[in-house]
C-alpha cells in the first residue's frame, strides 16, 4: 500500500484530475503527437518557442493518471525555461524514473517533478510518465530551427 501511495501522490492525483495547460495555444511553432500503443494513451504537445525560450507549452489528449499528470506537470515546469534547461530537466526526470528504487531519488533541478519517484517501483509505468516528454522532444527535433538559431 505504501508503494501505491508513493506512486499516486496527492500532487499526481490532482494534476490527473485537473490537468494544467490542457489547450492548444494560439501560436504554435512546433507540435508532435505521441502514442503508447500498449494502452492506447494518446497526446499532442504544442510549444511556442521564441529565441530559444519556451514561451508557451500546452497539450491535449487522454491517458492514465500517470501520463496525464506527467504531461500537466511537464508543461508547468517548462514554461519560461530555455531549451537547454528543458533538455537538462528531461535528463534528470529520466534518471529519476530509472534509478534503482533502493537509491535515494536524485533531486537536481527537478523540484515538484520529484513526486514521480514512486514510478520506479512499477517499471511498466515508466513509459506512461515519459510519454509527454518524448513527444515534446519529437516536436523540438522536428522543428530544429528555433533550437539552432540561438
Amino acid at each position, binding site marked *: 500500500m505504501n508503494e*501505491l501511495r508513493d*506512486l*499516486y501522490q496527492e500532487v499526481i492525483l490532482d494534476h490527473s484530475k485537473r490537468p494544467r495547460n490542457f489547450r492548444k495555444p494560439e501560436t504554435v511553432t512546433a507540435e508532435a503527437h505521441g502514442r503508447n500503443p*500498449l*494502452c492506447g*494513451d494518446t497526446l499532442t504537445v504544442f510549444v511556442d518557442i521564441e529565441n530559444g525560450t519556451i514561451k508557451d507549452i500546452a497539450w491535449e489528449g487522454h491517458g492514465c*493518471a*500517470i501520463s496525464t499528470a506527467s504531461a500537466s506537470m511537464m508543461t508547468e515546469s517548462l514554461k519560461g525555461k530555455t531549451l537547454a534547461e528543458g533538455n537538462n530537466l528531461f535528463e534528470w526526470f529520466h534518471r529519476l524514473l530509472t534509478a534503482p528504487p533502493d537509491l535515494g531519488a536524485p533531486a537536481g533541478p527537478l523540484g515538484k517533478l520529484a513526486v514521480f519517484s514512486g514510478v520506479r517501483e512499477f517499471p511498466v*509505468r515508466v513509459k506512461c510518465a515519459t510519454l509527454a516528454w518524448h513527444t515534446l522532444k519529437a516536436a523540438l527535433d522536428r522543428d530544429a530551427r528555433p533550437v539552432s538559431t540561438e
Partner: protein
Amino acid sequence: MKTVAPLDVVRVRRDFPIFERAVRGKRLVYLDNANSTQKPRVVLDAERTFYERGYANIHRGVYLLSQEATEAYDRARARVAGFLGARNPAEVVFVRGTTEAINLVASSWGRANLSAGDEVVVSEMEHHSGIVPWQLACAASGARLRVIPVTDAGELDLEAAAAIIGPKTKIVSLIHVSNALGTINPVDEIIALAKRRGIPVLLDGAQAISHGPIDVTALGCDFYVFSGHKLFGPTGIGVLWGRAELLDAMPPYQGGGNMIHTVTFEKTTYAPLPFKFEAGTVNIAGALGLHAAIDYVDGLSWEAIRAHEGALLARALDRLAAIPGLRFQGSPKHRAPVMSLTVDGIHPHDVGTVLDAEGVAVRAGHHCVQPLMARFGVPATVRASLSFYNTADDVEALAAGIEKAIEVFRG
C-alpha cells in the same frame, strides 16, 4: 446419471508451484489466464526429465536416445490428436503457437487458393493474430477481407454473417472464444453456413482450449489451432490441426531439414504429413510438456472444471456489478470465464496498477483486439480471466482491489 465430484481446488492449487510465492508481499491472485496459464509441476517435470535423462534430437540418430526422443515426440502428437478428437495424428502439426498456426494456414493455404476477387471472412472480435496474417495473404493475392460485425452484447451478428459468407468467400477464419469478452461463438452455425457452400473454416481455439473438451470431428471445422501455454503447457509449442486433404494440397510453409523427402538442385520432394510443415529442429521438450499438460487437464474432468469456472464467473459478475461506476464491455449469453470492464473516471492502467499492488494480476490494455476496442469505443479495458485453480477468494480480491482503486482516485 453419474454426478461428478466437484473440483478439489485446494488440492489442485498444490499442483502449481507458483502459488507458493507471494507478490509484493501479498498472496498471488492470478487472473490473467486468457493471456497465459500457470504450469502444473508435472509439466515442469516432463521437460526437465527429458533434458536430464532422455535428451537427443529426433528423427536423426540411429542411437537409443534419439529413438526414445522420437517415440516420445510421436506419442505427444498422438495424444494431441486424441485430445482434439482427430482421427489421424498426421493431421497434427506442431508449431510455436496459435499465431504461427494461423500464419502457416494464411500463407500456405492462401498461396494455393486465394486470388483477386476472392474473399476471406473474419469477425470483428478477432485477435490481431486472426486479422494480420489474413491481411498479408490478401495483400499478396488481391483477395479482400470481409468482417462479420459484433453486436452491442459482444456477440457475432449472425444475420450479417449469413449475408457476408457468400459465393466469393474462400475461407472463414473465426475465433472460437473471444479473448477480450469471453464470448463463446456459435461456431456450429457459422460452420453450417460455410459448409452449405463448401467453404473451409479455421477456428482459433487459443481461448477455448482450456475451458472445455474440443472435438474437431464433431465440430466439422477444417483447421483448429491453439497454443500450449494457454493450456497449462510450455510456451513456444502450439498446434495446427488440419484435414489431411487440405494440408496435403498446401505448399510447405518453411523449407529446411526434416520437411523433405529428397533434395537435389534440380528438384526437391517433400516429406509426408505432418513433417512437411515441421522444418528444422522442433520444440521437442515443449511437445512433451504439452503432452503432460493434456494428461493433467484430462485427469481433472471437464465437467467439474466447467462447473467450477461457471460458478466463479457468475459470482464475479454479481460481485463486480455491485460496484458503482463499473461497466462490463459486452454481455454475451454464452461466455467463458473472461470479463472486460472499465471503471468510470479511472484509466484501466491505473486500475491494473492498484490491483498489482494488491497481488492481483490482470491485463489492462487493448488485448490485441484494437478493432473490437474501437467497436466498443474504449481505448483499453481491464480484463480478468479465470481458470479452474481460481477461488472465490480470488474473485473477492479482485473486487476489493477495484474498490480500493476507486477509493484512491475518487477518495
